[in-house]
């Protein structure tokens, strides 16, 4: 195929952009992701800007530039302030700390120790990312630029090789070769299913000729997952570039990014990014002077989890109820508005430019036999370091929880990790050392899913967690197919019964039977995977179900119905406050004599417990 002469020299643009970054002088990166904004990063930025006016004092630099970046991933330690030239990462920075950082470190080169990260194991202050375990053990590709560049500046994206891959691809003008590279790289869909990306592209490309669409699935609905949000907020141009390369490969000239409405910041940054890219002719008509054109639109979701399923997502873009339909026909043949459509997840597309730049071999050198490259995980729950991480496929759970995550919080005991959200399952201590990839996790009864990792301690009730997920999927079931609509409802009923201490052993059998039917009979991925949290917890924590049923006890002490609130007679002074507080009149007693709780009447609201001046009321 003939090479195309482009009317733009991306290397030249890169040089100029890099020069401009040098001219910024001392770069102070302040995280402006959703998490840090909530912790007040806008005020921190303002304060820095105020101080920055006084530039004469910066001996080595003639200027200081405050760069609001996307998510650094270490949300819990926000607001994060990174000064790369000084090799320092400050955590939990508040507006009032800014002046000290400026006076002490920026002006006088004396780090502010109290704002450094403290290692939870060694209790030592750590200066920079290279020494913070949370970062040191990660390999960032999809997230490489998140937190290092101004997310709202296309120039900063260009400086870190943004759109270089697109220019290369357009110059070579060989769509087939692009698909070959992606196929060879071994990239698999990062949205959950793990379908080989290259193969999906090839299927769609086979229908080339008429109108085709590219769709980016940014409907990150799994509770506990926020990697796609971070990419869209922190490095939107990487996603746009990935989409453009994919569109070129399959012959699409129009595309949609479907973003959930709960991500307003991501929507705002993507809109700006599209506009900036169009102005530079990196999107729109005749991109970079080639024959290839691509129009991108943003569609806001309206709060329906099932729209993460590709056929439901298509229905939603078309303005309909977001209900899935049976496949085939697959979207590759008949998708959006009845045309061939390629749907990829945000993280999948963010990997594309990097693969095109560094080659398929580079990408496939990371990971395991069947799962190549890196995967982002949202690490949350009872660990010390919560946040967004990216590690090579095959990393063990132990490395993630105990090295990157810094171990369990408040000295709690590790019990399980819930992986893959409402479609995934629980992994226990025995799984800590298996290399995590698509296939190993399926074998263990879980799945990579979108990559939510919620660490749970012995203070978390597994049955309650299963009920929580079932409640979620039941709520989100669209109602189209019977197994999912009725099955999840009845599974939830049984779980509620067990949690309330009213379950029987027959219920447990029925629960398992139902789980299997819902799994086998449901139309789409939502129903097919909805029973996973129940099945995997029944497999690994059956004892806990049984103690709820037989002993009427919740081993973690979470389930209200099995809680017992009692008054310690030795401590009770008979002040009558509890009896007056109790909304249901369950407490008897006379003045100056120990009181007593009538367990049949008690609704376990704990109002007496929080109001007792003598701490005489306890939870048993």
């Amino acid at each position, binding site marked *: 195929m003939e090479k195309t002469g482009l009317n733009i020299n991306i290397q030249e643009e890169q040089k100029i952009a890099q020069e401009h970054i040098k001219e910024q002088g001392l770069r102070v990166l302040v995280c402006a992701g*959703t998490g840090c*904004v909530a912790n007040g990063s806008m005020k921190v930025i303002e304060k820095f800007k105020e101080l920055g006016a006084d530039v004469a004092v910066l001996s080595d630099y003639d200027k200081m530039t405050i760069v609001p970046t996307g998510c650094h991933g270490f949300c819990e330690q*926000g607001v994060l302030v990174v000064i790369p030239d000084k090799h320092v990462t400050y955590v939990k920075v508040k507006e009032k700390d800014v002046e000290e950082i400026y006076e002490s470190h920026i002006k006088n080169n004396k780090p502010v120790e109290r704002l450094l990260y403290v290692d939870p194991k060694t209790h030592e202050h750590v200066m920079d990312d290279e020494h913070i375990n949370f970062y040191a053990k990660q390999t960032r590709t999809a997230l490489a630029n998140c937190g290092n560049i101004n997310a709202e500046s296309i120039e900063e994206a260009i400086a870190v090789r943004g759109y270089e891959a697109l220019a290369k691809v357009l110059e070579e003008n060989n769509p087939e070769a692009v698909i070959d590279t992606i196929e060879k790289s071994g990239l698999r869909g990062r949205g959950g299913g793990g379908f080989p990306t290259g193969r999906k592209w090839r299927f769609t490309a086979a229908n080339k000729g008429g109108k085709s669409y590219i769709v980016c699935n940014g409907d990150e609905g799994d509770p506990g997952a926020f990697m796609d949000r971070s990419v869209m907020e922190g490095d939107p141009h990487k996603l746009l570039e990935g989409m453009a390369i994919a569109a070129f490969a399959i012959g699409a000239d129009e595309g949609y990014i479907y973003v959930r409405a709960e991500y307003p910041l991501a929507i705002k940054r993507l809109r700006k990014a599209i506009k900036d890219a169009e102005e530079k002719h990196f999107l729109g008509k005749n991109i970079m002077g080639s024959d290839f054109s691509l129009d991108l639109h943003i569609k806001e979701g*309206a709060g329906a989890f099932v729209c993460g399923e590709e056929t439901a997502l298509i229905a939603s873009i078309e303005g309909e109820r977001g*209900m899935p339909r049976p496949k085939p026909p697959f979207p590759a043949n008949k998708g959006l508005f009845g045309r061939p459509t390629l749907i990829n997840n945000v993280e999948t597309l963010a990997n594309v430019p990097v693969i095109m730049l560094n080659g398929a071999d580079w990408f496939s050198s990371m990971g395991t036999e069947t799962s190549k490259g890196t995967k982002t995980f949202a690490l*949350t729950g009872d660990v010390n370091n919560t946040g967004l991480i990216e590690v090579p496929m095959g990393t063990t759970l132990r490395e993630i929880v105990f090295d990157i995550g810094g171990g369990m919080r408040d000295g709690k005991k590790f019990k399980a990790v819930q992986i893959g*959200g409402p479609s995934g399952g629980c992994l226990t201590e025995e799984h800590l050392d298996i290399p995590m990839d698509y296939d190993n996790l399926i074998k263990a009864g879980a799945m990579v899913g979108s990559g939510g990792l*919620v660490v*749970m301690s012995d203070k978390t009730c597994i049955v309650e967690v299963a009920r929580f997920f079932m409640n979620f999927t039941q709520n989100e079931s669209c109602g189209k197919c019977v197994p999912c609509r009725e099955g999840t409802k009845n599974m939830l009923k049984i779980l509620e019964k067990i949690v309330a201490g009213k379950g029987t052993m027959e219920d447990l059998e029925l629960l398992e039977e139902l789980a299997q039917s819902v799994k086998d009979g449901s139309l789409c991925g939502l129903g097919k995977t909805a029973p996973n949290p129940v099945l995997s917890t029944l497999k690994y924590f059956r004892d806990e179900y049984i103690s709820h049923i037989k002993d009427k006890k919740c081993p973690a002490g979470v389930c209200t119905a099995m809680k017992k609130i009692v008054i310690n007679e030795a401590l009770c002074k008979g002040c009558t406050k509890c009896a007056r507080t109790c909304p249901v009149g369950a407490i008897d007693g006379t003045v100056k004599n120990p009181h007593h709780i009538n367990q049949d009447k008690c609704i376990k609201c704990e109002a007496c417990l929080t109001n007792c001046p003598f701490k005489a009321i306890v939870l048993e």
Partner: protein
Amino acid sequence: MSVENPHKIDVSKLDEIIESYGAKKSNLIAILQKVQEVYRYLPEDAMIYIGTKIEGLSPATVFGVATFYAQFSLEPKGKYEIKVCDGTACHVRGSMPVLNAIRAKLSMPEGQLTSENGLFSLETVSCLGACGLAPVVVINDKVYPQMTSDAITIVLDTLMKEEA
């Protein structure tokens, strides 16, 4: 097509909204989102109007779409929209006590969407993607991180004082 306007819905405003997105079926969700932003809910008459105005739609289809998506409300929402995140991370770190504290503070029993004085509406959402800050409460787009029963009570007190 001209439609009679039975109630006090400002048709010119609706026309303006439909116009700005384009009177196409595929823009229905965006149009409804904008209408909800203006009225803080989807008035029935607005849905009927949109359903008759846009080709390929009927009021029933519009109603079907409006009831499918969690974001749309057919009842007026309060001036302050409180969203309590009950995603996994928030749930594990105690979002339920926070929700109960809000219900107690605003005297809103389970199932009630909007407070008696119409100031506050309350709902749970499944995940706001701010899991590192769990548990999270969002009031009109402002994120309140790492909430506790006490902390949210103080937040609500401040808002109530402003309104008093």
